[in-house]
C-alpha cells in the first residue's frame, strides 16, 4: 500500500528527538566567525589599533560608521601610527553586520564579537561610541547594561577571524598573518583546512548542535562525527598551480 507509506513516515516522527532550541533558555553555539557586535582592538602594549583612516566608514554599505581621525599627541600617543581614531561611532540601527568594515580595516582594528543579543530601548543607546567599542585593559569587550553576553561570545575577537588562509589560498595555512593583541598575544592559526575532505564534514559548531540535542539526527545528509584522520593528501606532479583549491582534487 504505497498510499500509506507517507503516514508511516509522519507517524514515526512523534517519538523522535526534537530539533527545536528553546531559545531564551537554551542557545545554540555560534560559528567561529560569527558577525556580531563589533569591538575595537588594541595591541599588546595597550595602544589602539585604529589609525582613523576612515576606510571602514567609506566601505560601509549602510553608512552606519562615523569616524574622525586626529594626529596623535606626541607626548601621549593613542595609536602607534601618525594618527588615531578620534571619534568612532557605529549606529546599530543601521548596521547590517556585513563585515565589510572588518575586511577593509588595514590594521585589524575593527573586528567582531559573537554577541547579537543587544536590544537597546532608545536610539541613543543604539549609537555605540568609541569608549563603548574599544576593548578594556584586559582585552575583553566592554559589557553594556543592555547586552546579554554569554560564554564564548568574546572569543577570538581579532584579526584571527578574518582569515586563516588569506584569499582562500591554502598555501598560507598555518602562517600567522595577524598582529598580536592585548590580553591574548598572537593567536595561533586554526588547523585542518588542507584536509581534502574538509568541505564534506560540518563545522564543529554544527556537530555540537546535533549532539547537544539528545542523540544524533540521522538521514539529514550530515555526518555526525568527524571522520578519522586520513593519510596526508598526495601531491601529484604538475599540480603546482596556486589557483587550484584542495577540494577540487577529485576522489581518493
Amino acid at each position, binding site marked *: 500500500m504505497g498510499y500509506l507509506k*507517507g*503516514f508511516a*513516515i*509522519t*507517524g514515526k*516522527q*512523534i517519538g*523522535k*528527538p*526534537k*530539533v*527545536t532550541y*528553546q531559545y531564551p533558555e537554551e542557545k545554540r553555539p555560534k560559528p567561529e566567525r560569527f558577525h556580531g557586535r563589533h569591538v575595537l582592538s588594541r595591541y599588546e602594549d595597550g595602544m589602539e589599533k585604529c589609525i582613523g583612516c576612515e576606510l571602514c566608514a567609506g566601505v560601509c554599505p549602510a553608512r552606519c560608521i562615523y569616524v574622525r581621525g586626529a594626529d596623535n599627541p606626541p607626548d601621549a600617543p593613542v595609536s602607534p601610527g601618525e594618527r588615531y581614531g578620534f571619534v568612532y561611532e557605529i549606529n546599530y540601527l543601521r548596521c547590517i553586520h556585513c563585515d565589510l568594515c572588518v575586511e577593509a580595516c588595514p590594521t585589524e582594528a575593527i573586528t567582531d564579537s559573537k554577541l547579537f543579543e543587544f536590544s537597546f530601548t532608545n536610539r541613543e543607546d543604539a549609537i555605540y561610541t568609541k569608549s563603548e567599542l574599544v576593548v578594556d585593559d584586559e582585552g575583553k569587550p566592554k559589557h553594556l547594561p543592555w547586552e546579554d553576553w554569554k560564554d564564548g561570545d568574546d572569543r577570538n575577537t581579532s584579526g584571527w577571524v578574518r582569515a586563516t588562509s588569506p584569499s582562500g589560498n591554502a598555501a598560507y595555512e598555518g602562517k600567522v598573518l595577524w598582529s598580536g593583541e592585548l590580553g591574548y598575544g598572537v593567536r595561533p592559526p586554526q588547523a585542518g583546512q588542507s584536509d581534502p575532505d574538509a568541505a564534506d564534514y560540518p563545522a564543529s559548531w554544527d556537530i555540537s548542535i546535533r549532539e547537544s540535542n539528545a542523540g544524533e539526527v540521522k538521514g539529514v545528509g550530515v555526518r555526525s562525527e568527524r571522520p578519522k584522520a586520513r593519510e596526508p593528501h598526495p601531491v601529484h606532479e604538475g599540480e603546482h598551480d596556486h589557483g587550484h583549491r584542495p577540494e577540487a582534487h577529485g576522489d581518493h
Partner: protein
Amino acid sequence: MGDPLFNHGLSFAVALIVIVKTLIVFVMLLVSVLFMIWYERKVISWMQNRYGPNRAGPYGLLQSVADGVKVFFKELFTPSNSDRPLYRVAPFLALVPAFLTFSIIPLGGTIRVAHHTTRLQLVDPPWGILLMLVMSSTAVYGVMLAGWSSGSKYPLLGSVRASAQMISYEAALGLSIATVVVLTGSLYTSAIVGHQHGLLHYRGTTVPLPAYNVFRSWLVPFVIFIIAITAEMNRPPFDLVEAEEELSGGFMVEYSSVGFALFYLAEFMNVITNSAIIVTLFLGGPDGPRIFGNSVGPFWFLVKEFVFLFTYVWLRATLPRFRYDQLMDLGWKRLIPASLGMLLFVAAVQTGDRPWVFGVAGGLIVGGLLLGRALAVGKQATEIETRTEKVG
C-alpha cells in the same frame, strides 16, 4: 424513538432540562475547540520534530486562549469594496451549522434527571441525519458569501473553488449516508446507533466483530464518507479554498479580528462535529463493552472521537494539497460512482435473495447509463472544439 423527555408534554422542568443540556453542549464544544486547536498544533509539531506551543500554561494548553484573547482585541477591518451586511454575516453562517450539527449526535444512552428520562443527546428529530446534510450545505454559503462579499480577487477565487468543491463532494457524502440509512431503515441518529449494537450477523452466522456499519456496509462507504467529509469541510488535503501559496488565505483573506476567529473556530468545530458524525454513522457511536458492569457510552464515544481527531491531524501533516483537476477527478469520477455502486450493492444484500446478481445487474445498468452519457458529452465537446478550430 425520539427523546422520551417529551413523552408527558412540555412542562417547566422539561424546558429547564433542555436549556441546561443546550448550555452544556455549547460550552463543551467551545472548550473542546480550544483543546483541538492546541492538540492539532502539538501533534503536527511532533510529526515535524518540533515542540509546538509550550509557553502559555502547562504544556502550552492555554495557547488557544491567549490567541483568542489577542484576536478579539484586533481591529475589525472592513474592505471598502465589500458588501457590508453579507461580509458580517458570513462567518456566522460558517460557524452556526458546525454547532447545530453536533446537536443530533448521541453521546450515550438515557439518564434520569429529576424524574425525567432523557437521552444524552441534545435533540433526536425524526429527520435525524438529514440535518447534517442540511447544515453542511448551509456551511457552503458561509464560505461562498465570505469570498463574494469581501470584494477582492483572492477571496472570490477561493469561494468559487469552495462552492464547486463542496457541492461536488456532497453527492458522494449523501450517497454514503444513504447506504447507512438503507442498512438501518431509519433517519433517527439514535436508531442508527442502536442498530449497531451487538455482534455482526451475516447470512445466519455470527461473525466475531461488532455490528458496526463500517463492517456491515463493506467498508467502502466508510472510506468514501471520510474522504468526502474532509473535502466538505475544506481540511487538508482538500484545502484548496484557502490555498496559502495561490490564494494567500482564500476566502478569509480580508477577515481580521472576530471574523477571522469565527472562521477559525468553525473549521475546528467542524473537525470535532464531523468526527462525531463518522463515529455515529459507522462506528456505533457510544456503543462499546461495559466496564465493571457499568454502561460507559460517553467514554467509548470520546475514545472513538479521539481516534478521528488524531486522523485529521495526521492527514494534514502527511498529505500535500490536491490539484484542482485531481480534486474534481476524485470526486466525480471515483467517489460518486463508487458510492452509488456500493449503495446498490448494500441495498441488494439487504434484500436477501441473490444479492450478487442483483448488485452486478444494478451496477451494470447504472454504469452503462453513466458511460453513455459521458460519451455523449465527450462527443459534443469534441464537436465544439473542432468547430472553433475551423473558425479560428
